């Protein structure tokens, strides 16, 4: 699973959509692509929920959430974070 274009310093979180307690990844983005490997697929395809947030320091971005289907060949999600001029 690859998350592209994640702003450095963001928090990312990936979980199975049908069971959000099954968290596949949860971490800080170093910048650039984030590759999550070794995912145990429970279904093929498996719908994932992807959240990316950055509201703590520096430039802040609006919460981003999307879904993607994970198949045997993997999946790629392009993360289009938008600036949050309000926070």
């Amino acid at each position: 699973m690859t998350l592209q274009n994640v702003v450095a310093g963001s928090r990312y979180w990936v979980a199975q959509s049908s069971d959000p307690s099954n968290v596949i990844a949860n971490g800080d983005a170093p910048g650039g692509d984030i590759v999550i490997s070794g995912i145990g697929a429970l279904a093929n395809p498996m719908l994932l929920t992807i959240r990316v947030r950055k509201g703590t320091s520096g430039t802040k971005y609006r919460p981003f959430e999307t879904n993607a289907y994970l198949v045997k060949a993997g999946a790629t999600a392009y993360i289009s974070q938008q600036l949050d001029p309000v926070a």
Partner: protein
Amino acid sequence: MAIQDDFTLNYTAKTITHTSGSTRYTVNALYSWLMDLFDDSGQMDDAISISAQTPAEYTLVNGWTFGDDATVGYLYGGSIVVEKATTDRDVWANFYTLGTIEPDGVVFWLQNGSAVSAHPGYTQGHIDQLIKVVSGGSDVDSRKVSAFLRNRASGNADLYDHFEATATATGGRNPIPLATSPDSNDDGGDVSAYSITVGFGSYNEDVDGDGTVEGYEVEVDCGGAYTCLQAYKYLRYITRRGETTTLNGTQGQFYTRANAAYPEVKQAPFGTFAGGKFFGARGVLLTNVSDANNRQLIDSSGATRIPPVTVSMVVSGVASGDRVLVARATGTVIDKSQFTAAGSHSSATTVTTNEALAADIPSSGVIRFGDARHTYSGIDRPSKQFTGVSPAVTCANNAPLYSPLVDDTAAGTSMSKSFVYVSDFDVVARVRKKGILPFENTATVTTAGASVSAIRTTDTIVT
């Protein structure tokens, strides 16, 4: 203390509740804190609780709500929509006052006929507060909220003001302009004991003395015991902040006008006071005051009604038995052709004239056809008639006549006649009696009337 110390989140019930402290925070501070909180590792599994539409408009989303309405009292500077369900939502609009106001003025809120409490910690001055304008998906009074400033403190009373604002469907940040300044006509003294009654209904009075009554919807009856200024103070007293006694079904502190169709007089809802005169709001009848001339009222039709100014012509320095005459004149020449008879009259007790009988012709008095003196007891101005004339008059068509202001024998040391002032005019005054030298002087009748002081000089020659 920081905002995270004062608010508590319940992730199960999805509530945000103020639980500590007295600090108030901007809605933006709440939003920024929640954005910061929800990007923490432990909160990534929770859907976000708030979103921002603009820097002044926010929404609690994903089922998040406030734990109680009191929590919102600790927020300001922006509006919040609480999306509880598809059609069930609350909108907390943000209202804030601005303008030049007295620093000790206390703003109070009105919504849908009821008072809304000020936010925690508010004491005086400008205010910035969130008020719920949509509850459970339904607008509260079309999302209208009014702010009032009606300070009438002892020794520090201000002119009043109020303003109604309507929030947008999304709440928004709504400015409310207010302006107050000290009231130079009201010291805020205790007038609670004044026996002045205020009634609402249908009232008629001929305030301007034109012979036709006008209609009013509010009667302020001073019982003949109070001046217009005292009435003004009392009317401010019964509409001051904190006055809950109702006026026409509305608490006094929220009373604004006699009729919703009439313009508001925000500084003083029953009428203002300036230059020693009471200027009534539309439909307000101020009556039985001891200084009736100090009124200018507006009847229910919107017409301004000014009471006639009554003035007096006074001749002083006379003695009982003196013959006194005061009549209109040009220089020292009496105008004996002030009027002309309309048609011939024969033994008539009603004399009709060709000329209009203006309001400054006394309603009773004397008319003279040349040297012939007649009294009259009434006047019919529309018909141009002197009525109750005695003795009866017999005269030819167009016979000249005039109406002296004073024409009688003195019974004391002065003689006077009151009448309505219309415009300035000149008079000549004569005082005569055998044994004194004839006295004559001129004067001009003005809004203050006129007075002549006779000088009685003994005639040492007459025998």
